[in-house]
């Protein structure tokens, strides 16, 4: 049978506040275990939480950026369970009065733009970290009490790709707000996924499984893909999917049952009596709104109208805040009114280079001026597009200008016909078959021959000139 997957995501984002959510301890990482602790985050008897106001203002910003309605009354609740990394025996979280409700994230799908509804955004504190060794288990409470935002979607996604797109978009918005570094490997962004299947066309939801332990967006996609296959197999075999929590094992590329619905905790949520109701005024909401910078979607729209570039290009260039700032500078400094050459270079060779180095455009440590110099060398046919990629690499590695590299490595493009004639003669002699193909009407054969000339000239030949010369020679003979 053909099934439709229904996917909902719960994302935890660690906020980048200086201090923890309910005490004055520093929220920093990589320090000696149990050094950023105090009676409050240690859960010592008698200690009491006091909300860090920055947590609330970060939460308001995220809520507003996702188009949520901010709740004028919000409160904290206790989520009760026992675990050695949870010093109070409960987590301070939000249950029935979260700070923000009902927003949306727009994603691009092959079928066009799609709206994923955000059900709620709430504040909570993180737990500590357990470390196990042969002698036993140790608890590090540096992370206990660090502020998190939980962002929950409605079950609005239908494919792993849509989930991936949602995560990418959400991350981009949060990075723009500068409230979290969103580093999934460091655990500052975590994602759980709920997925169920139903026969295509059916509107009732099937039984869902909750997937945990994915530590990258790709892992989320892989886990969903695996889980959809697993559930389809069960349904096809006439079986029933069990409601349960499953753990993703990236090494085996499989999900494994962690606990069934029957084993699920009863968290016994109730209002935390140590924290009073928070009344959020319209002024505070206004202040938070004023603190929201231009978001990716708005920036993309502006790039399109200001620079006359396509929606696709604008989307790529604005996905990351720092990259967008870099791109904008480059485009602005580009002297010509037609920005296409620089835009193409940014999303072409430059992005490829950034990807191969595992960083963003802005992480290449290239000044816009130097980049423009490179682009203009290509434009003036001093070097070919192909050679420019080599030059780019060296510019980054050696921190040199394009001009210096082209000169020192003698990489200037050969447009001089007399210099190219010799190479062409050799290529024609060595590729008799292609010459015959061309003559028998296969016009494409000329492109092969151009490629051979380029290769023999170590990429330095001007391909346009070569093509001209080749066509003339083939016609002559």
């Amino acid at each position, binding site marked *: 049978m053909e099934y439709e997957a229904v996917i909902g995501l719960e994302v935890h984002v660690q906020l980048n506040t200086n201090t923890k959510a309910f005490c004055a301890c520093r929220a920093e990482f990589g320090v000696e275990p149990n050094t950023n602790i105090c009676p409050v985050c240690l859960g010592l*008897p*008698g*200690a009491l939480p*006091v*909300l860090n106001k920055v947590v609330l203002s970060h939460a308001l910003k995220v809520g507003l950026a996702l188009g949520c309605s901010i709740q004028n009354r919000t409160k904290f609740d206790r989520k009760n369970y*026992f675990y*050695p990394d949870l010093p109070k025996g409960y987590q301070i979280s939000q249950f029935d009065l979260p700070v923000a409700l009902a927003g949306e994230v727009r994603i691009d799908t092959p079928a066009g733009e799609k709206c994923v509804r955000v059900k709620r955004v709430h504040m909570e504190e993180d737990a500590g970290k357990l470390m196990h060794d042969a002698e036993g288990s140790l*608890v590090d409470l540096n992370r206990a009490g660090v502020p998190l935002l939980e962002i929950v979607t409605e079950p609005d996604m239908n494919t792993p790709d849509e989930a991936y797109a949602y995560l990418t978009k959400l991350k981009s918005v949060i990075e723009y707000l500068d409230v979290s570094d969103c580093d999934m490997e460091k655990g500052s962004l975590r994602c759980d996924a709920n997925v169920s299947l139903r026969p295509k066309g059916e509107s009732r939801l099937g039984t869902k499984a909750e997937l945990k332990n994915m530590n990258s967006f790709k892992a989320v996609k892989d886990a969903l893909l695996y889980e959809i296959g697993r559930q389809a197999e069960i349904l096809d075999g006439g079986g029933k999917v069990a409601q349960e929590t499953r753990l993703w094992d990236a090494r085996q590329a499989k999900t494994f049952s962690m606990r069934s619905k029957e084993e699920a905790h009863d968290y016994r949520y109730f209002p935390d*009596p*140590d924290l009073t109701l928070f009344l959020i005024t319209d002024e505070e909401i206004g202040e938070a709104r004023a603190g929201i910078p231009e978001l990716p979607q708005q920036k993309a729209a502006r790039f399109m109208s200001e620079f006359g570039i396509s929606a696709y290009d604008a989307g790529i260039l604005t996905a990351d805040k720092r990259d967008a700032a870099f791109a904008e500078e480059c485009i602005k400094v580009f002297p010509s009114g037609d920005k296409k050459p620089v835009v193409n270079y940014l999303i072409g060779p430059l992005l490829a280079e950034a990807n191969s180095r595992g960083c963003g455009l802005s992480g290449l440590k290239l000044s816009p001026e130097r980049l423009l110099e490179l682009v203009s060398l290509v434009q003036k046919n001093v070097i070919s597009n192909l050679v420019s990629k080599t030059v780019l690499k060296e510019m980054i590695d050696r921190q040199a200008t394009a001009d210096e590299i082209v000169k020192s490595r003698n990489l200037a493009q050969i447009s001089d016909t007399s210099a190219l004639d010799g190479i062409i003669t050799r290529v024609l002699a060595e590729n008799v078959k292609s010459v015959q193909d061309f003559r028998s009407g296969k016009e494409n054969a000329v492109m092969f021959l151009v490629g051979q000339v380029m290769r023999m000239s170590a990429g330095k030949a001007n391909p346009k000139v070569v093509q001209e010369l080749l066509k003339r020679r083939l016609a002559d003979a």
Partner: protein
Amino acid sequence: MELYSLTGAQLAELLKQGKISAEEILSSLSLRAAGKEDKVKAYVRFGGKLESLPAEGAPARGPLSGIPVSVKDNICTRSCNTECCSRILSGYRPPYDATVISRLKSDGAAIVSTKTNMDEFAFGSSTENSCFGPSRNPWDTQCVPGGSSGGSAAAVASDEAVFALGSDTGGSIRQPASFCGVVGLKPTYGRVSRYGLVAFASSLDQIGPITKDVRDSALLLNSIAGYDPKDSTSVNTPVPDYTACLGQPVKGMRIGVPKEYMVEGIDPQVREALLRSLEEFKRLGAVCSEVSLPHTEFAVPVYYIIATAEASSNLARFDGVRYGFRAADAENISAMYSRTRGEGFGKEAKRRIILGTFALSHGYYDAYYLRALKVRTLIKQDFEKVFGEFDCVVAPTSPTPAFKLGEKMGDPLKMYLSDIYTISANLAGIPAISVPCGFTSGGLPVGMQIMSGHFREETLLKLAYAYEQSAYAGSRRRPEL
């Protein structure tokens, strides 16, 4: 007159005049305690003498300079153990002082490093639920001193303490004060910081003074009251000088006497003592009328849902992982939890954890906890309505005088009903004071409770002081020990 028998205000005056030294006060108290502890058992971990905590940075002359304050075992003190009279906190020494302790220290008070006895985690009305064994009522050592701040009340009544701090969640300051013939004040919720008070029920707990007379309660409240940025539930409202209102006339004050408090279950001698007190108030020029607090009958059930629900969560941190008692040789984490908690908590603590866990459980929350919150609001509104017309409400503190040790231990419900008159003030968050108002024919003290609107401690103190002066001035009885 021995120094130990004086009030804090009297000692402060003598110190100011240079007639006595702080060391003399402490050694007088220490000798007194050494002589009477065998009978009273007001203190826990008592090693034969009383010492005071080092008062780092204490001023040369503060309002409480050199006056010892005894402290209940659930208020955190950095330099001595705070175990809540529970095995599960055995050996626990907090790394910080409760805000009230810092405030007292900065006013120069000498914090007594031996803590006073209490029901484990303040769960009880008799101090019998202490892992160290019960305290005794100085008026009759066969009787309980009340609870849960029974140790503090017994220490003050037996002159083993000048004054003491207690905590009151459902009557734990007022009921033992009434059983022991001393004054006990539960301030408005939010008046005194709870930071460093080991939580029983966070929305009900308040720290307050237990003293020999009303003036001392005002004196202690002056020191401990005030906004604390470390306690989100403390209220930022000015703290008056609570001694300033003492001696002001009470003529024309309107006193309400709730009819719901004077019904079945009340001991006839308690009832008589209260009626005599009302006559005293009338002589002083106050106007007494009957009022109604119609939701009174729900106070006990509402309290035992809310208080146990909060307690079940507050006590979750006692898991053996980080501090206190841990059961030995558990085979896994789950066994470590259950054995630590099974062996570390006493019977009443377990009873309340189970009750509270049940009340918050999925499927029961709405019927119990949520409904209890709604009725709590109704109880609060009852008081607001009455305080629209009356300055205060006067009632017995407890339906009976002190009962015999062991008398109610087998019947938790009976024990819970001992707090029937005190619980409402905690649910409503209002201040209430218990002052001695007579004795039974058997020689046991009876207490009267005065309640008023939020942050109207001055009304309570003024009225209680006027009563005390007119009924007892110069003739306060002391237990024979």
